[in-house]
């Protein structure tokens, strides 16, 4: 519990708000001071009177911290509807975050909202990029409209590959399919590669499958988001993954592909807030 900035929710007002589409926006807050926060870590965002939900850090610079939120229900909706004077409680940072080795080539695979923590990762990687280093992004989403941060990424020194399910922009199909197409080549060209992925678990299962096929699962870091979070610090038991019993909230949310191969529920079953298992689809 030593590296947690706010153990109890600290309420802040929104400093800046950027809408990406009808359902998604990025909220920026100003922390009272600079702090060490890693990509892949998340905060619990509390809308008093509504709910408190886990949201990844999608950007962090100086004291400015951003969260990119998709409206899927009560809390996310009211987060996105908040004005500049209303208070939102922040508790965190929680979770392990990605292990980042600067200078190493990186393949970043995002499905849908999975881009949120990866955007912060891309910010970090590109701010320290070397001339020989390749950073390849494969970003997938339903439609062109859902390709968050697209123009931002296009301005960065990275190789972008956009995919949409409806073909409205870039490759038509899943990011995992695109990854399958690209990975062989990338590895062959002596690509000393670290893979970073985030998205719905079913999608991540496919990503891991592709990585495993290419024997690179140990260098694949996968950020999960499909478990119910209560405490955030590994004590209440609501977010654990079967069989080995790893908490998403504290042992994760980032796991090596080689570890996830032992997680029997990975990509298959989640648990509701009452602990009941349900199948992903």
């Amino acid at each position, binding site marked *: 519990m030593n590296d947690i900035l706010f153990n*109890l929710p600290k309420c802040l007002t929104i400093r800046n708000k950027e809408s990406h589409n009808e359902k998604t926006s990025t909220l920026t807050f100003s922390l009272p001071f600079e702090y060490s926060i890693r990509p892949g870590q998340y905060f619990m965002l509390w809308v008093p009177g509504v709910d408190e939900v886990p949201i990844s850090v999608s950007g962090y610079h100086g004291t400015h911290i951003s969260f990119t939120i998709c409206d899927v229900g009560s809390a996310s909706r009211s987060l996105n509807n908040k004005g500049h004077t209303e208070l939102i409680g922040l508790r965190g940072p929680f979770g392990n975050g990605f292990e980042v080795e600067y200078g190493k080539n990186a393949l970043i695979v995002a499905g849908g909202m999975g881009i949120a923590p990866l955007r912060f990762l891309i910010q970090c990687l590109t701010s320290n990029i070397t001339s020989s280093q390749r950073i390849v992004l494969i970003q997938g989403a339903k439609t062109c409209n859902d390709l968050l941060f697209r123009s931002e990424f296009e301005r960065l020194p990275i190789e972008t590959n956009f995919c949409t399910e409806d073909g409205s922009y870039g490759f038509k199909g899943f990011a995992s399919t695109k990854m399958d197409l690209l990975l062989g080549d990338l590895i062959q060209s002596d690509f000393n590669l670290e893979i970073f992925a985030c998205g719905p678990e079913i999608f991540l299962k496919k990503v891991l499958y592709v990585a495993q096929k290419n024997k690179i699962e140990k260098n694949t870091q996968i950020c999960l988001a499909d478990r119910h979070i209560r405490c955030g610090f590994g*004590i*209440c*038991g609501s977010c654990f993954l*079967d069989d080995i019993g790893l908490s998403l909230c504290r042992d994760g949310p980032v796991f090596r592909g080689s570890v996830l191969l032992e997680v029997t529920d990975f990509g298959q079953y989640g648990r509701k807030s009452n*602990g009941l298992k349900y199948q992903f689809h």
Partner: protein
Amino acid sequence: MSDLTTFIGRVQIRNPLILAAGILGSTFSTLNRAYQEGFGAVVTKSVGRHPRDGHPNPSVVYIPETDSILNAVGLANPGCIEFGKELVKIHSDVKLIVSIFGSTAEDISSVIQCIENNIGNSKSVAFELNLSCPHVQKVGMLVGTDPKLVYDIVNQAKSITKTAIWIKLTPNVKDITIIGEAAIDAGADALVAINTLKAMLINVEARKPILANLRGGLSGRAIKPIGIRAIYDLYEKFGPKVPLIGVGGIWTWEDIVEYFLAGACSVQIGSVLSQYSSPQFIISELLTGLQKYLVQEGLSLHELRGLAHE
């Protein structure tokens, strides 16, 4: 090396550290893992007759100033039928205690039966009846503060199962020994004390209670002196014949010794797990400290029990 084998009545466990109810124990995986990492036994999350979603978030927050936790999970559980299926997957060597809540004797007995129908009547070493949750209406604490109701619940539970019945007591009463006595009179095999204390925190910026449920229960370091007194009072009343399990704020091996000196024959560990990335670290720290103390004092764990009463 001192032998740490512990008896709680007929129940024998390899060491006196038990994972407390509601900590990690929602799934077979975590219970397996906790036992594998060294606990002497593990208690499940409390389960009831029907599924309960529990309270919305915030439901569990950490209070750094006093190393304490405020929670109102609200007895979230998938109901005894589903939970029974979960428990089937627990390894057969795990010493398992199933925690149960309910509002009437029938309610609780039906959960016991439901669990035994699913897992057989030899898999769990005990049922721990949680009559003490301070943040759920109608079940929990309200039940556990009425000696007559406690008597009936225990009496009926004892009549339908051969498995040991432990009663988890609430500290939110004038005199914890009155409820303890009702439970023992009805045949309870052990008393577990304490559950969390009625508590609340308010965020001064939002001017709102932090927990979605408004009220919650306080656990962790803040409550240890209250737990120690509860065990001391119970031991003073019942002497060594009633097994007592101390819980509340155990952070160091000294805290365990304190509970034993007060009269506990075993302890449960909860909030302190928040301090460690994995249970094994705290377990080995606690057991090592305990061993060293016992060797130095030339006492067995058993001999330690109740010594503060002399």
